[in-house]
């Protein structure tokens, strides 16, 4: 079936961008600078507190109309909406994981005279990332499913092609939707395995209290 490549490229692009956003916002919320902290906190609450589909429409219809901001293409409008939304959720995971690395780890690193940056890079982050992995995996699966919303702004993903096909073969509607479900599930399978693997990894090598 056509459209799988669109679904996959939207997923990959939003995943990469959302992890990036998650780390930037996660660190922002831990910053010593109160303005950065407040600003990222505001961003996270706004994007967590409103619906993804409305955000998608905003990036697609409202921004160009209101401010004459055009986000390169439909593809990027969709990707940025998904990435900003999931990035907001995942920034909380980044923040929480960093905070849950045991206090003794930071102290031991200080006792070895590491700088703030070295403590983060060599001691805290390697352990925090292990804690983040399983949750990141879960969100990746959710993101896959969220990509189906891009059919609403005209991207020709699996669901879009399915809908078109159904409108010309009305009697086949149940079969078409079953097929679409199967496609999503097949796409999700490797991600589920990846998450399982990440869970195993994360149980090793972390000191938390």
């Amino acid at each position, binding site marked *: 079936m056509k459209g799988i490549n669109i679904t996959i490229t939207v997923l990959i692009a939003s995943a990469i961008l959302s992890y990036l956003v998650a780390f930037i916002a996660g660190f922002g919320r831990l910053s010593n600078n109160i303005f950065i902290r407040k600003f990222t906190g505001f961003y996270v609450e706004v994007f967590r507190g409103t619906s993804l589909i409305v955000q998608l429409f905003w990036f697609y219809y409202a921004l160009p109309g209101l401010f004459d901001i055009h986000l390169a293409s439909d593809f990027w409008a969709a990707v940025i909406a998904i990435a900003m939304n999931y990035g907001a959720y995942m920034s909380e995971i980044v923040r929480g994981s960093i905070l849950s690395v045991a206090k003794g780890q930071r102290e031991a690193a200080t*006792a070895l005279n590491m700088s703030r940056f070295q403590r983060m890079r*060599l001691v805290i982050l390697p352990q925090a990332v292990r804690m983040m992995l399983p949750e990141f995996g879960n969100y990746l699966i959710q993101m896959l499913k969220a990509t189906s919303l891009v059919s609403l702004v005209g991207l020709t993903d699996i669901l879009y092609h399915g809908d078109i096909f159904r409108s010309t073969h009305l009697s086949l509607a149940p079969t078409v939707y079953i097929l679409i479900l199967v496609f999503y599930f097949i796409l999700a399978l490797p991600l589920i395995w990846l998450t399982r693997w990440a869970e195993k990894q994360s149980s090793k090598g972390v*000191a938390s209290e």
Partner: protein
Amino acid sequence: MAKPIAVYNDVHKSFGDVEVLKGIDLEIAPAEKVALIGPSGSGKTTIIRMLMTLEQPTSGTIVVDGQYLWHMEKNGELVPANEKHLRQVRGDIGMVFQHFNLFPHMSILENCMVAPINVKGVPKKEARERSVEMLEKVGLGDKLDDYPSQLSGGQKQRVAMARALVMRPKIMLFDEVTSALDPELVGEVLEVIRDIAKEGEMAMVLVTHEMDFARDIADRVVFLDEGRIAEQGTPEQVLENSESERLNSFLSRFRS
């Protein structure tokens, strides 16, 4: 007495409304072995944590090897130290913790190598040699590639000591290093500390509840009570011939 390696001048420390240390004056000579004893809550651990820069004094000054630790001089005035200054001064200090605090994502060898390489810029090969040598000294030469989770408490604590020693500090701080260990593992850790103490050139400050051990290795025993130094002197003076009621009632709890 030789020029002291660390000096506390009227150091106070409060946590919220609770004043834990009420004016500590203490000098530690190079290579001196000092045991800090006292009831829990008397502030012993806080004293060494301030020296490791993990806790900031509320008032007073600490001088390490001639340099202010928590302050720096600027236009003739003392101002609070910045991160750069702290790093410069605390390089002389090493610490071993009650709960080991090994880095769980690194092998035993990496635990020892990470700081010399990244903090001191020691070439990797040399850092490796130094670490292996130190791990052999604490009796773990055959565990280099194990991870902390594979070791017993006593072994972990010995790794923690090797990790601190590789940095070649002038002062080593021991924060109740045997308190979290099963009784049968305490001996092996004390044995290693004894060996380190015998080598001599490094000053050591030990917060401990092991009175026999303190008597054995300390040049001086300091008894803390309610945030103040209540008694100090040679192990014989403090542990055997003191007239202080508080001290004797504290010590009586350790005699069976």
